[in-house]
């Protein structure tokens, strides 16, 4: 692997800005990695090789001419294939939209373009972003770069694989029940979802309009801070986007977490957890304590209702937007997806409204229980070891349903609560697969979450390890 491909996103952006590395060299380094790795890993749905190289040359000409450079100038990326770009196919990982050509461009792509990022193409994903494992019956499963028979996590499977394998420096994922944080933890990279409403969803394939989130998978917390600063903020095209100002997230990365208080809820997140995961999680807490954070175990009984209500909302909203295709083209969905959607039609309307109406009160309760005297909530991202693709394949055997659904158990609550949440690598299990640390903060406290993640990464090198 070339030295250029090993740089972090922010280090590469700095090197390009200083003229130490060209955008063309960076794009060529990424394409070399894709050529070497992707046949086995299947991260890409479409590689726009020629267009990307030309965009990189244009970026180099702009720098040479002395033009103002954006914060991501010349950085190669690729994104989950559900971010619309006018005139380019966006498959959403599906047979149904295999030839779908959107008429709009997603606001987040426009913001990345304006920041100077180079778009290499589109990445594999779970069909319609609807599974936590990354299985895809139409474009083939992506494979875990650390151990290919194991799942990648989903639904942003290609994003996790491409960033971990150093095919790209960063990638957009989306997160409705953990779809950024799960591939981040399972592939060994950093992934953040912001506060609900923090990032525009205009021009993005919907799944559950109450809980969909746009965010990046990156190599470091600092990369995530830079990326979030580019994409976050109110968007007139998305009336649900929040007007809260976007702070300088990188300025929050001081490394100083002395006195910061971290809560570890004892409910839910450790039910049936594997010892190797708990051990790595506790070691991560020790790292944070050594840097001066205070860690305490707390009780958060509101998690029970949260974990029930989140399932009601996501199943009804997911089922509703797919109703027409479920009537007319059910056979064009993978078995596990049509099966998952089907039950959503059996939930009464008043249950759905009740689950939505409880969201505010339960957020207040959870904040009082877990964040009243604390700055951060910490949990394992995935409470078990990484499962194989085979043992979570519902299409092959419906008996795998429970194992399949359990993958997102620790991530889903934070989508219902709407809290900013990050996952970062904190170890490896006995089969050489990554383990993730999940950190959540108060609403709009993305900077605090990133600050703690960055402090942890200053003390550890899990995030710097690259699969062979």
């Amino acid at each position, binding site marked *: 692997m070339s030295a250029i491909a090993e740089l972090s996103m922010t280090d590469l952006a700095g090197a390009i800005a200083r003229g130490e590395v060209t955008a063309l060299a960076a794009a060529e380094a990424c394409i070399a990695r894709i050529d070497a790795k992707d046949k086995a890993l299947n991260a890409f749905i479409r590689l726009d090789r020629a267009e990307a190289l030309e965009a990189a040359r244009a970026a180099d000409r702009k720098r040479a001419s002395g033009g103002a450079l954006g914060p991501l100038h010349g950085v190669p990326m690729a994104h989950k294939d559900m971010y619309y770009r006018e005139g380019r196919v966006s498959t959403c990982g599906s047979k149904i939209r295999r030839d779908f050509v959107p008429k709009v461009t997603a606001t987040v792509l426009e913001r990345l373009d304006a920041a100077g990022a180079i778009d290499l193409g589109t990445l594999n994903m779970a069909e319609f972003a609807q599974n936590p494992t990354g299985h895809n019956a139409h474009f083939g499963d992506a494979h875990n770069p650390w151990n290919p028979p194991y799942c990648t996590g989903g639904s942003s499977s290609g994003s996790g694989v491409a960033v971990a394998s150093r095919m790209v420096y960063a990638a957009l994922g989306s997160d409705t029940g953990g779809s950024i944080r799960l591939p981040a933890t399972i592939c060994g990279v950093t992934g953040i979802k912001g*506060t*609900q*409403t923090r990032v525009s969803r205009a021009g993005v394939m919907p799944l559950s309009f109450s809980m969909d989130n746009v965010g990046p998978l990156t190599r470091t917390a600092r990369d995530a801070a830079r990326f979030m600063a580019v994409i976050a903020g109110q968007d007139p095209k998305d009336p649900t986007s*929040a007007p*809260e100002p976007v702070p300088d997230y990188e300025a929050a990365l001081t490394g100083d977490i002395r006195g910061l208080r971290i809560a570890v809820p004892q409910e839910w997140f450790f039910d049936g957890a594997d010892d190797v995961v708990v051990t790595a999680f506790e070691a991560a807490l020790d790292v944070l304590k050594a840097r001066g954070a205070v860690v305490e175990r707390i009780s958060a009984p509101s998690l029970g*209702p949260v974990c*029930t*209500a989140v*399932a*009601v909302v996501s*199943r009804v909203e997911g089922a509703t937007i797919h*109703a027409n295709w*479920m*009537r007319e083209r*059910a*056979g064009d*969905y993978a*078995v*596990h997806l*049509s*099966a*998952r959607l*089907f*039950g*959503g*039609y*059996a*939930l009464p309307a008043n*249950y759905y*409204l*009740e*689950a*939505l*109406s*409880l*969201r*505010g*009160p339960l*957020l*207040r309760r959870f*904040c009082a229980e877990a*964040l009243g005297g604390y*700055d951060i909530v910490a949990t394992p991202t995935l409470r078990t070891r990484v499962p194989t693709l085979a043992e979570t394949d*519902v*299409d092959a055997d*419906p008996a795998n*349903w*429970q194992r399949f*659904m359990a993958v997102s158990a620790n991530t889903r609550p934070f989508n219902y609560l*709407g809290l900013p949440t990050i996952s970062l690598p904190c170890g490896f299990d006995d089969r050489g697969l990554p383990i993730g640390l999940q950190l959540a*903060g*108060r*609403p*709009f*406290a993305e900077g*605090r979450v990133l600050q703690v993640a960055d402090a942890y990464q200053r003390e550890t090198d899990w995030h710097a390890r690259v699969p062979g």
Partner: protein
Amino acid sequence: MTTEDTSAMEAAIDRWNGIAAPNQAARAGLADHLALITAFEALRGMLGFEDEPASFEAALRAEQEKA
């Protein structure tokens, strides 16, 4: 959880949505949904008379970090 329960749900989905069970996995998944309904029934009494979905956005603003 009985076959009768899931059959009734399957019939209700067809009646109200015009959607038939697409495969055996969908029928198996209904048992999971019955468990969810049971869990949700246990939450009865939590909802306040004035609670509504917009209370979530209000809570997001109210629960921000204080400077």
